[in-house]
């Protein structure tokens, strides 16, 4: 027998103090309460024989004191948490990996797989032996330990209650690595995986993970899996008509039977499209929605069976996306007057154009783009980018070359965003100047006489330079002219280039944030706020829940707030048919043997039960006046 609780010396000190207090209280208890009676002589008559039993009465009081001291001794012994010496040495050490992936939200078992898993883990904990210790770990995108390695049910139970399923895939590889590390050096090590078996491809895990003597057990959860899912969802605005958008999504039927489904699209919370169609067994069906109007910010997709039934996994029936926010680009035009340029700028209602005559003082506000028409004024730092049209000698950020005449675009970079959708092959130009680019500049348009369209950057400010006056060509009469102007502005504003309409849960997201901020606050779909670091202009966050998020960074005038969306988008998680077995290559997980509840033989529990029993007897005998 060893004491695993308080040490013996401390117990003896407590016993000494408590016994002294008990004896003192007992002496105080022996002071009888005074009660008046109307006529003591009658009491004498009634109690004249009590003196004969006085000795026995004193003895009974002594017995009562001894009784109290015995109770005290038992309680203090229980404080010491006595255990059989042998049991301390031979206990099992378990790491219980509970699948917290999206598939555990399935409701084929009531109320859900994760709740069923919690119930099973509770049974497992209650069936542990007195020397067994367990560690509860939630296995999501990252393993999260929820308790210490403990045998205390009062610590393990709250940890089990904390278990929850997220909208991510469970990473069994990481979970097992964590479990192996936790069990290293401990005897009788066991890993218990509590899961529905929807863990992706696990066959390769055994090749790089050495379980050693650690035994692997599997506790299957779930009984069926009827599911349809939205497995992909993204949206983008049309570059030339940002009021319209196109949506790409993919729906999947993960069952072996065909299904009639109803797909609903919601723009800014209002229904904008409802369609019904059939999905074959295990079919994945991509769908495109073109020229979609009616949504300016949020877009959601919902799928369900056409007959109104819900499937077993609601988590993948709802997808979210955010369209890029349309910025009003500020454009500074320095020109003596150019009808074709002004007409091109009128085509986009999201342009805020300010026109200044050459040589006049420039406004001090911030401008996204400056268009310098035949001039080369020095631009202030508040101008982010510049488009030079027919620049004069000495002002342009690059040197001018030879004079050109009767030329056109013989080569141009069709992949450049500035020249996309443009047909420049038959543009005729009367005269102009060849441009001399720096080594870091890029020629995106040239005639056989020399470069005429160059892009590059100076002091962090990008520019595009055109070597001729467009009015000296027929370009301004073509559709390609306004497209060129608007493409250039779009390329400078960079509205579309890095936009992500929705992130994927379970991955580390890098959300654009002000580069000046060190940290940002992410508000998840449930309203919880998380402070995340900002690295190189990106807020880094591992999201585990589908829905709309908000990000805010900076403070005061520099405060920036933006939104983004996240989706499960994981077909593997949508295939929720539970697996009865778990095999890591050649290694197969064994079944879990759950002990009978209460098999955790804690001696102090019995000591406490004895104390309670004795107290009950003492209480009864006191009220029956046996021990007083």
């Amino acid at each position, binding site marked *: 027998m060893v004491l695993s609780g308080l040490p013996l010396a401390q117990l003896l000190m407590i016993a000494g103090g408590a016994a002294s207090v008990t004896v003192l209280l007992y002496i105080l208890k*022996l002071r*009888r*309460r*005074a*009660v*008046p*009676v*109307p*006529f*003591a*002589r*009658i*009491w*004498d*008559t*009634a*109690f004249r024989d*009590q003196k004969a039993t006085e000795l026995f*009465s004193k003895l009974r009081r002594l017995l009562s004191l001894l009784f109290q001291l015995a109770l005290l001794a038992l309680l203090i012994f229980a404080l010491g948490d006595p255990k059989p010496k042998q049991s301390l040495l031979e206990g099992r050490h378990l790491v219980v990996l509970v699948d917290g992936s999206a598939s555990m939200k399935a409701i084929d078992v009531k109320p859900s797989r994760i709740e069923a898993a919690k119930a099973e883990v509770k049974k497992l904990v209650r069936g542990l032996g007195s020397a067994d210790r367990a560690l509860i770990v939630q296995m999501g995108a990252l393993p999260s330990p929820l308790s210490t390695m403990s045998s205390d049910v009062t610590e393990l139970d709250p940890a089990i209650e904390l278990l929850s399923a997220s909208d991510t895939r469970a990473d069994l590889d990481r979970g097992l690595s964590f479990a192996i590390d936790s069990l290293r050096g401990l005897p009788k090590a066991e890993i218990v995986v509590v899961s529905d078996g929807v863990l992706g491809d696990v066959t390769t895990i055994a090749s790089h993970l050495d379980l050693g003597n650690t035994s692997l057990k599997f506790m299957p959860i779930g009984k069926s899996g009827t599911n349809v899912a939205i497995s992909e969802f993204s949206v983008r605005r049309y570059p030339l008509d940002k009021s319209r958008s196109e949506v790409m999504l993919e729906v999947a039927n993960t069952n072996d039977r065909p299904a009639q489904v109803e797909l609903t699209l919601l723009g800014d919370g209002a229904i904008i499209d409802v369609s019904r169609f059939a999905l074959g067994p295990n079919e994945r069906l991509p769908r495109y929605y073109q020229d979609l109007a009616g949504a300016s910010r949020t877009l959601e997709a919902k799928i369900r069976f056409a007959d109104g039934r819900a499937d077993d996994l609601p988590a993948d029936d709802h997808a979210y996306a955010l369209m890029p926010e349309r910025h009003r680009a500020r454009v500074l035009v320095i020109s003596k007057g150019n009808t074709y340029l002004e007409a091109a700028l009128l085509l986009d209602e999201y342009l805020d154009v300010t026109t200044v005559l050459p040589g006049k003082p420039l406004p001090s506000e911030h401008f996204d783009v400056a268009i310098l028409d035949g001039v080369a004024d020095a631009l202030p730092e508040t101008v982010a980018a510049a488009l030079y049209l027919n620049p004069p000698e000495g002002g342009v950020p690059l040197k001018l070359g030879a004079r050109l005449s009767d030329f056109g675009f013989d080569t141009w970079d069709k992949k450049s965003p500035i020249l996309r959708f443009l047909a420049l092959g038959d543009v005729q130009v009367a005269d102009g100047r060849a441009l001399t680019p720096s080594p870091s500049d890029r020629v995106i348009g040239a005639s056989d006489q020399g470069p005429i369209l160059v892009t590059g950057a100076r002091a962090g400010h990008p520019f595009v330079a055109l070597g001729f006056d467009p009015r000296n060509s027929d370009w301004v009469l073509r559709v390609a002219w306004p497209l060129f102007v608007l493409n250039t502005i779009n390329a400078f504003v960079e509205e579309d280039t890095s936009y992500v309409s929705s992130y994927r849960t379970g991955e580390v997201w890098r959300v654009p944030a002000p580069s000046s901020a060190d940290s940002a606050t992410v508000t998840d779909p449930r309203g919880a706020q998380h402070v995340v670091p900002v690295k190189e202009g990106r807020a880094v966050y591992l999201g585990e829940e589908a829905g709309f998020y908000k990000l805010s960074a900076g403070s005061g005038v520099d405060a920036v707030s933006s939104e983004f969306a996240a989706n499960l988008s994981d077909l593997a998680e949508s295939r929720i048919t539970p697996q009865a077995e778990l095999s890591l290559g050649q290694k197969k997980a064994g079944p879990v043997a759950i002990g009978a509840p209460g098999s955790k033989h804690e001696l102090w529990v019995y000591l406490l039960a004895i104390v309670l029993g004795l107290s009950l007897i003492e209480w009864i005998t006191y009220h029956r*006046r046996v021990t*007083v």
Partner: protein
Amino acid sequence: MGLLDLFRRDRAPRAKRRERVLFDDEFQRKLEMLALVSRRVFAGRLRAERRSKKKGSGIEFADHRDYVAGDDFRSVDWNVYQRFGKLLVRLYEEEEDLSIYLIVDCSSSMGFGDKKKFDQARRLCAALAYVGLANLDRVTIVGVNESLMSRMPTTRGKGRIFKVFEFLSQLEPAGTTDLEAALKTFVAQHKRRGLAVLFSDLYDPAGFEAGINVLRFNKFEPYVVELVDPAEARPSLKGDVRIYDCETGEERELTITDGMLDKMQRAVSDYRAGIERFCAQKQVPYFPADVDTPFDELVLRVFRRGGFLR
């Protein structure tokens, strides 16, 4: 405010209301119909409604005697003269008043608990006093403990009942019980013999017998009304206690159990049986007055059934 305040007319309205309830007209009329029964004939002082040893001007025929010069001619029995030729004068019984002494035990034991015994004694005393006053008897009330504590002067006529209430309301239980000493003082101060009604719980450490005997030996006609509180026979006590006599302060350490309480109940019964036996042997009328029995029921039924009132 004492419980006897309930009988007082000139006090607060609430007291008046209670007075009407507890000592209402109906009860008052019934009391007027009653009279205390005296088995012996005592010499009275004033003319009243009680038979006395004197011959006089009553209406009840008593005897004849020879006519002597100076006798009232109207009292000559002419029927006897017609038959026997002798002049005899009719003698009638003289009706005098009766002295009634109401002795209230005012020791601490009477006030034990919620003064239930003391209040019941005061109520009964007031009722009997009213009966006596209504019959033109001479009523005297005394309070006793270890001595004669207080005394209401002898009074007569039912108009004096409020004096009685006033006196009773001023009594408070205090001191120890010594009936013998107190009643010796009583008999020394009251030479005119009569009915002596003792209201007491008879918790006398020296023995109740001596006190009653003082009345007997001094030719009073004693009546004993024992105030009984059933709660005293089985108090709600358990465990280790130190009891002390509320009068003498004597202490005893006891451990009380249910068995002990049964014994206590038997002891109280034995004590009361002893009182009853003594009174029966000495031909002293004895009436137990339970505090839980309404006092009007005690007066109208129990005392009448026991021959105390008629």
